């Protein structure tokens, strides 16, 4: 069986692994401590919240229900009435750069940088 594997395959595998590791360096901007939780619905800003507070954030738009909970420096999707429930099963996130996505509801919850913005909550 191993006669069929060519050198190009191995090189491709190594190339992919190298690109994977390299992209890990590019993407790694994790900052511990206070962060900003940004929630976007259908591409528009829904609200910004500090990671430090304990708060329940319901997002109910057009029958699409999601409940986001920030507690003890972690964010999770507590409830959702979407079909796949991928967003609920992800669990908690706590680091800058991480995100929870509910694709059917076009909802994005992400943690970014620091909360130097100074706002506790902004809704539009």
């Amino acid at each position, binding site marked *: *069986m191993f006669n069929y594997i060519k050198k190009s395959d191995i090189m491709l595998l190594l190339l992919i692994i190298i*690109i994977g590791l390299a992209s890990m360096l590019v993407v790694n901007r994790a900052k511990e401590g206070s962060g900003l939780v940004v929630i976007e619905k259908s591409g528009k800003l829904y609200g910004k919240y500090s990671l430090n507070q304990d708060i329940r954030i319901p997002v109910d738009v057009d029958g699409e229900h999601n409940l986001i909970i920030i507690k003890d420096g972690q964010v999770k999707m507590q409830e959702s009435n979407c079909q796949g429930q991928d967003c609920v099963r992800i669990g908690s996130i706590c680091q800058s750069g991480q995100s929870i*996505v509910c694709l059917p509801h076009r909802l994005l919850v992400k943690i970014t940088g620091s909360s130097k913005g100074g706002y506790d909550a902004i809704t539009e």
Partner: protein
Amino acid sequence: MQSQSKPIHGVYRLTACSIAIGLALILSYVEAMIPLNIGVPGVKLGLPNLVTICLLYKLGRREAWTVSIIRVLLAGLLFSGLFATLYSLAGAILSLFVMSKLMDFGRFSLLGVSLGGAVFHNIGQIITASLVIQDIGIFYYLPVLIISAAISGTLIGILGIIIINRIQKF
């Protein structure tokens, strides 16, 4: 079965494709039952890709495309929601396109083709997700997806090599 250089008989091809769709559907279902929770929807074993790639090598491009697209749509209707289907479809189309090109290129064996397919399946999915969500931050998960594609692509590739060398020529 006698080997023949004539084009593949229509009924034979139809039957083979139908079986392939069924097989790919089952594999889709099985891999959905295995929870791989890394935070991004879309980290999968890529089992149905095994069917796709064997079709590419054994039957041909058109059969691979047909079976692939039908399978994604059926699996989407049966098992997941509309958005997950769209997302899977994007990944499958990009992946099959790349696999087709890699196979033509000639320098890679099935393993290389499978690797390319796996990586671009994930890339296709992540691009679609970032368009739906309209946020580029989701690329944070790109490294994880690439590494997981490398692993699953290799495994499926090895299985694929074993399979195409054992099943009879059509």
